[in-house]
């Protein structure tokens, strides 16, 4: 039986009792989030509860999560994208990612607490990662606030 969009349970840090996925990389990303010590909670943004307006339409990222490291709380947005959707300059995915970066940068510029960060990870990279930090290192687009400490030890 296919697990496509079947709600899956037994998470340690998911806000909801169950979360559904459309691909193996999304599921793997959830496992990495759930297992990372710095992550306080995460939610799968499906049905959509969080969106950012961009020139290419609403950006509705896959995950929103909160990390705490050395008493510093940071909000993070994670998008996992299939390579075929990402490829090509000017793809919708790239425009949306640029929008998300500008969005987070606006919050940083206004020094709003907590700060927000953003990572866009390709499907293959997510599937081949074993830690959250390792996956985020491979992000193809990102906005990171300098003072925040990334995924676990890095």
């Amino acid at each position, binding site marked *: 039986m296919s697990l496509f969009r079947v709600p899956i*349970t037994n998470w340690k*840090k998911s806000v909801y009792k169950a979360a559904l996925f*459309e691909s193996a990389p999304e599921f793997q990303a959830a496992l990495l989030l759930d297992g990372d010590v710095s992550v306080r909670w995460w939610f799968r943004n499906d*049905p959509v509860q*969080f969106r*950012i307006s961009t020139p290419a339409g609403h950006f509705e990222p896959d995950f929103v999560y909160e990390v705490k490291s050395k008493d510093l709380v940071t909000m993070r947005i994670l998008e996992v994208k299939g390579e075929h959707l990402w490829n090509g300059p000017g793809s919708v995915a790239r425009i949306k990612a640029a929008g998300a970066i500008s969005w987070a*940068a606006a919050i940083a510029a*206004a020094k709003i607490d907590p700060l927000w960060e953003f990572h866009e990870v390709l499907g293959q990279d997510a599937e081949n990662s074993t830690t959250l930090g390792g996956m985020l290192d491979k992000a193809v687009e990102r906005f990171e606030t300098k003072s925040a400490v990334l995924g676990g030890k890095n």
Partner: protein
Amino acid sequence: MSALRDHSLAAACDAIVSKANLRRPQLEAFEKFHQLVRSFGRDIHALTQQDIAHLLADRGYSADTPPELIFELATGVGKTRLMGALLVYLARSRQARNFLILAPRVAILDKLKRECDPSSSKYLFVDRSLLSSPNICFRSDLLSFEPDPTKVNVLVLSPQTITGEDRRFAFSGDFGPALRDYLTGVEDLIVLSDEAHHIGNGGIGAWREAVSRLRPKLYLGFTATPKNAERKTIYSYGLNECLKEGRYTKAVKLWVEPKPGDLTDDDWDHQTIDFGLRRIEAKRAAISELRIARPEFPDVEPVLLVAARDITHADAIGLWLEKYRGLARDEILVAHSGKKGSAASGTERAIGRLVSIDRPGNRVKVVVNVFQLSEGWDVTNVWVIAPLRSLATFTNAIQTMGRGLRLPAGRRIGDDEVDTLDVLCFGKEDFGTIVQAAIKQFGTGAEGSASVAIVDREAHQIRTSKPVTIDVVRPVSVSVPEVVRVPGEPELDFAPQLTRGISSYIEVYDIGSEEFGMEDAAAVRRDFDAVVGSATSQVLDGLRFLDPLRHAGPVRKIVRQVLEDLGGAPGMEISTDAAKLALGVMEAIRTRFRATPSAYVAGQQPHRIEFAAKEMMMPVDLAELPSKDSIDKWK
């Protein structure tokens, strides 16, 4: 009967058949027509109208003049393709060189115009090698068009244009006789009529009269719903047969559930739509899954088509979807002819939006329309149809289903969900009544059930998923800062190239083609500056990110430039529809804004994401939701 003539006809027939890749019903119709023309014994241009009427009467057809033949092909089988093939056949076999194609709607004229472009994958004239550069006239070319007796002349017009009110068609210009006089004078005019049932309709006598006055040698009608076509139908491949054969359209599944007595109409509307939305989710999932294995399958957004009783009802449904089902405004298309302005241009506007929903990048998930918009537009991504209230009857369901029969890939692909159109019949009729009606329409037993599958929602446990409530287990609070997106601003001073792009858009939607059935179809002419002013304010009104104070000047300049490129000038009386002009300009401006990066500025009013229990769907055959630890490999 001359052997040379036979040879020429057969050669034309073979050439087209070898290139046109006709489907079986198209091929049968084509060959039947070929045999008929062959049996005439003389070329059409050498016969009088009376001769042809007699020849047809001898063969059991009506003896009316103009001689008329109707091709009935179910929606989705490809009427336009057949029409184009027949035109090329008649031209290549030197039966005729003058053709008038009539189509009653701007949306259809627009489509025909695109398909007259040799680079179109649906090239109307089948293949460039078959017919060397036909001399084509669209409505926007009426002033400049000159018929060329040495070439094949094809006019693509609306019936309204030929009824006589359009000066450019009826009256002679500076350089030659009126087109109407030209067409009446030639010996070989063939009229081909798309969606011909509008013209066959007795209520629209003026159109029929106008066609008669042109004295065509043959009038060929193409329709899915013939009217008054006794003894005129040369070939018929109707919906019943098409559904039974199950090759050229989606299969149809009719879901039946009578409205419980204790529910209000509104509540029942909402439950019906909710079910439709769930069906759409199932379609979307099936399409996504299919596309993993077959990425060539078009990436289309499945659409739920809701048929509402009237404009007020449609608007209320649209608001409900936005407010209570969380659909974004651009995911809902409430399409009707509108309350203000002429119903005719409102209808054209609505249909113009409807026909675009299966283009790439469409965001529309639900179309709410009113019954009068139930034809004249064809898209491939309507997968679920929900007629509401008194429309939820078997008869209406059958009528409405035409909008959802077309297949995105042009053929079925072997996935039940993707190959099937769901029609919800949630009204007063119970399962038994509908089965009876279906038997009457489609026949009994295997034959009938091959046409339309009827499903009693309660009695048949065919649901594959059930709702499950997912609770919040870690209550958290998220404050999302307000961030305002300020679209970047491009220079609103267009390069001529882009202006030309707008111009061709306007030509397509040109000049007051009025709603069919209007007796006074004369285009309303207005002063050039009045059209510029009206279009400018509609653009400013429609694009909320523009500032009327700052942008009125540049927008006005763009609008005026478009009209001037079309041959207009201040002081002229023109009939360009300001609303359509505005749509074209808006799209061009929007495109430029989209290409310009936005600025994001943090605001002062954060909002909070509230987490509450939510409903998801789970497969019915699972006793409980799977644990992440039980999953070895995600599949």
